[in-house]
């Protein structure tokens, strides 16, 4: 017993205690729920069995029901649009801004830092502001687009079925691009300057330098940023209740919002769990790419 206490105070026991406490907590609050989620997706869960662990086995019935649901393909399409265009927008604009702020001018890092306010704001507030900017009749975005001559009449971003998902995409690009920019800036700063100088002496123009130096040198950063973008987009939830609530007629519902609606608006917890398990497969693929591309840096 005394040896055990001594090891806690002055040996390996101390390390195990520190890691163990965190790991037990994470296991209880994240690991077990995850397994429980998979279990529930194979069970019949209703108001009567909600309180018990052993419930009637459903096999793959929940999965079949989800895929056969009338909104399934709509939600899949929306999720693909949301994920792809959010990531593309965040990455392209973020990369362009990172390249711009990598130039040498006074105040570059301070102004770049200001962009991060979007990242620290509560998602629901961002959603509220964009919901107002995108409003159909009195929204400021329509006014700006009309004065630029891009559109002729008001676009009803939130209530037009063909635009509702794009309303959330626009808000999400704004929300996420600052973080993309910051990470890409760090990657840019790590490229040795003399590479560019040597290429310039050899007569390479700016575009060639970008293609042959910047892009190859940034490969692992880009991999990490893209997978973080995928993970972040699949985690994005707050914008949906704030801007469209998935409507009109599910035209802006994505998988993560659908799963939540199933559980907490229709109280069909089994289907909610099923949808989230299906989504989880996507997240796991992204995170394996992410872990692989950051491994070297994280191990430091």
């Amino acid at each position, binding site marked *: 017993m005394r040896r055990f206490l001594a090891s806690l*105070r*002055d*040996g390996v026991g101390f*390390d195990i205690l*520190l890691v163990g406490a*965190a790991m037990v*907590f994470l296991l209880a609050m994240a*690991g077990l*729920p*995850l397994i*429980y*989620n998979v279990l*529930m997706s194979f069970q019949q869960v209703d108001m009567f069995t*909600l309180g018990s662990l052993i419930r009637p086995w459903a096999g793959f019935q929940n999965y079949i029901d989800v895929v056969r649901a009338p909104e399934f393909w709509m939600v899949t399409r929306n999720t693909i649009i949301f994920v792809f265009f959010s990531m593309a927008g965040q990455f392209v604009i973020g990369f362009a801004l990172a390249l711009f702020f990598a*130039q040498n001018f*006074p*105040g570059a*890092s*301070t102004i770049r*830092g*200001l962009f*991060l*306010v979007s990242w*620290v*704001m*509560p*998602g*629901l*507030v*961002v959603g*509220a502001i964009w*919901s*107002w900017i995108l*409003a159909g*009749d*009195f929204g400021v975005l329509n*006014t700006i687009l009309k004065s630029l001559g891009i559109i002729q009449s008001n676009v009803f971003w939130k*209530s037009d079925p063909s635009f509702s998902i794009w309303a959330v995409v626009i808000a999400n690009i704004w929300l996420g691009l*600052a973080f993309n920019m*910051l*990470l890409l*800036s760090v990657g840019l700063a790590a490229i040795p300057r003399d590479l560019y100088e040597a290429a310039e002496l050899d007569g390479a123009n700016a575009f060639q330098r970008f293609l042959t130096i910047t892009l190859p040198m940034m490969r692992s*950063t880009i991999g990490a940023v893209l997978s973080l973008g995928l993970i972040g987009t699949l*985690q994005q*939830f*707050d914008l949906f*209740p*704030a*801007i469209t609530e998935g409507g009109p007629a599910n035209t802006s519902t994505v998988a*993560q919002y659908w799963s*939540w609606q199933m*559980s*907490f608006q229709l109280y069909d917890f089994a289907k909610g*769990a099923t949808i*989230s398990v299906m*989504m989880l497969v996507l*997240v*796991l693929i992204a*995170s394996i790419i992410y872990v692989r591309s950051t491994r070297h840096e*994280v191990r430091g």
Partner: protein
Amino acid sequence: MTRPYIPWLLLAVALALAAVYLFPLYWMYVTSVKSGSEIFANPPTFWPREIDLSIYPNVWTRRTMHVFLWNSTLIAAGVTAITVIFGTGCAYVLARYRNVWVDIGLFSVLMLQVLPASVMVTPLFVAFNQFGLLNYPRTAVVLAAAAKAMPFFVVLVRATFMTVPRELEEAALVDGNSRVGAFFSIVLPLARNGILVCAILTFMSSFGEYIYSKSIIQAPALQPASVGLSGFLGPNSTDWNSIMAYSAIYVTPILAVFVLLQRRIVSGLTSGALK
């Protein structure tokens, strides 16, 4: 540079880009001080004709914001406390050693970091229901949100501990300090600033936590400000100056802290999230 005006030109472009990017924030503040009729002016006025601040006390009392903000503060404080207490030690050990166990630990932390809250909320709700935790909804939200916040905290703080030289700790051990003593008197003080910045980041992000609170907390008196905002926000809202005033009251403290600590936050993020 042979042409000296180019940096200033770039600065002007940078300021213009920042202005465009931060326009939504400006629009929030401007809308909140406009009168009810001016909001629906067509075309909208980019500078308010008259500034009317009466909406702020109005929204504050009508929406019982002191209750919501107090709950947000409680939840964020709880999440931050749990995250810092459990996360700091974990990050320290993961930074101190390099072996296969640390690799496994890091891998699982990174994997947990990517789990979406919308995936976790269904099993957590059902499990909390079974354990009776739903009777203490704020505690339940704190536990759930802390598990969400901790992996990111561990990754960032681990990078801070990596910058503390091992030699200092070893010197303390040689001088007869115990591991516990060396940790508390040498390592922690040296990593203090980094831990503080990460704790503030955790606080700010859990101050805006929405999905767990919305799903778990039913009683309005216990809900945080994000759920309070969602109560009068939807695709058909029209009460825009109240919504924007509410948002402004909600985010101004966060923005103030961010602007004050901007440099530290950015450097903390860049050293940890990715190199």
